[in-house]
């Protein structure tokens, strides 16, 4: 028996979200009185794999072959399913990010394993196996019971604190065979953002709405984000207008994020916007309208003009960092 965590890598490197998954998996394994196995697919160095040990990873299985160079959902499903069966996994945990969303549902059918996505807490109980998951776009959470022997969880990013439990991880290289005829995804073109803090990874996000008035006013907002080590985001009208890139659009139809701190500047707080940010631990709002709905969900607010307030915030952060 085991709990299997799939740790995605980005060009051979792990991120905080990988360690978050391992910390989570290690606790789930404890709850089930069993052990944790981490699976890494692709070319990752021993040194990088060993890092999983800091967060409770004891056994690490590496699968690396020519078929896993491109994310083909069928190939990845096949690899994870084979390892899950071999390790007699009771729970398979992946991140609720693009790759997790692409692969986990296929895995659910392949293993006939019930799946809960967008999970943000440890299992509420192990018998029946009950998970706490996001529903109605953040307006409610469900206690979802998974009835099958194997369970699949995708964990919301930034929903679980890292727990340092250092141990010396053992790395095994698996020799499972992958059916090459499954590879059917051909990449024609690839654009990767390197070095940029991803919105979904960020612990602090500074976001602007229509109240920013025009594309030209973004300077102080970007500066504030830079000073805080934050990522930038925006509301839908802002990306629709082309003031900011579509990658920054948060909400119901954009990205769903859960940073520790979300600073909403000139954003009214429409339900569809809140759907993407309501799981943030702290929300700060800057808005000229004291009755704007964003203040109902904010813990700190400033009623004022964004363009006057932002420079003051930048100055205060710079002062603090001195």
């Amino acid at each position, binding site marked *: 028996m085991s709990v299997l965590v799939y740790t*995605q890598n980005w060009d051979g490197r792990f991120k905080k979200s990988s360690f978050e998954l391992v910390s989570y998996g290690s606790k789930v394994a404890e709850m089930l009185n069993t052990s944790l196995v981490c699976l890494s697919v692709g070319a990752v160095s021993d040194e990088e794999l060993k890092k999983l040990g800091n967060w409770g990873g004891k056994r690490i299985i590496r699968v690396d072959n020519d078929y896993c160079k491109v994310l083909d959902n069928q190939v990845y499903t096949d690899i994870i399913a084979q390892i899950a069966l071999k390790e007699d996994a009771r729970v398979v945990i992946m991140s609720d990010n693009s790759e997790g969303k692409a692969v986990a*549902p296929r895995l659910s059918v392949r293993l006939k394993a*019930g799946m809960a996505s967008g999970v943000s807490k440890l299992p509420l109980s192990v018998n029946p196996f009950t998970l706490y998951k996001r529903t109605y*776009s953040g307006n409610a959470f469900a206690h979802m019971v998974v009835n099958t022997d194997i369970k699949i969880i995708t964990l919301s990013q930034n929903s679980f604190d890292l727990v340092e439990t250092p141990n010396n991880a053992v790395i095994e290289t698996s020799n499972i065979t992958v059916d090459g005829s499954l590879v059917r995804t051909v990449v024609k073109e690839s654009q990767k953002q390197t070095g940029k803090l991803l919105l979904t990874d960020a612990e602090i996000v500074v976001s602007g709405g229509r109240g920013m008035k025009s594309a030209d006013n973004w300077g102080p907002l970007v500066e504030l984000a830079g000073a805080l080590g934050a990522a930038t985001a925006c509301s839908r009208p802002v990306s629709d207008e082309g003031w900011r890139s579509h990658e920054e659009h948060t909400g119901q139809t954009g990205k769903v994020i859960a940073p520790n701190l979300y600073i909403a500047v000139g954003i009214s707080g429409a339900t569809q916007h809140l759907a993407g940010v309501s799981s943030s631990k702290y929300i700060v709002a800057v808005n000229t309208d004291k009755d704007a709905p964003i203040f109902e969900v*904010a813990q700190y607010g*400033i009623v004022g*003009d964004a363009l006057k*307030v932002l420079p003051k915030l930048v100055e*205060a952060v710079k002062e*603090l960092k001195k």
Partner: protein
Amino acid sequence: MKILVCISNVPDTTTKVKFVDSDTKLDTTGIQWVINPWDELSLTRALELKDDPSAGVKSVTVAHVGLPASEPTIRKALAIGADDAFRVNAAPADSYFVAAQLAAVIRKEQYDVILCGIESSDYNGSMTGGMVAEFLGIPSVSAVSDIKIENGSPLLTREIDGGREIVTVPMPFVAIVQKGIAKEPRIASMRGIMTSRTKPVRLYEPEAEEPLTGIKVYEKPSPRAACKFIDPENAGQLITLLQNEAKII
């Protein structure tokens, strides 16, 4: 080429959700039901492709698993421009159940391109599309923000964590679509509404399948502390509070 668009019937996105029966069921009083926003956009994109003769799209069909009460949502999709539809007559018990039902009909009717939304705004599952593909043993491409058909083969733009790729896969395949797939949802014209009444909706009885999950109870998010207001003249005070009180920076 035949395109299938899977649609889910969800409460309007501005709904303030409430629950009844000891928080086990959604209170449906006064709820406006709409086509799930993603599915509306994928329907729009399917129709755009059909309008372009070079894409070679013969028909756009809408698929839905649900009880007769969701018939108006199907009619709305037909009014927007889909050619026909099928409905599997069953309550959508969970994603696995729904995907199994869709796959069973797709095996009979055969489609080349199957579109699903990246999530439904009610259960936020992000599961149905991938599950349908696995049931059928066909490729799936997830987080698709653009679909083109060039010389009879698909070019899909997909978002990956930290970038995007343009990929191709052989047909049939499932594309799980997200933001960007179409700009604005297409709306029904008067003529569309008239003709939708006579468009065929095939009815299927469900296959024997059991859901793998169930929802025991719903919980509203815990209320947040009231907002503390800071004088705009002294805005820098916010940063001090975030550091010393919230301890978040």
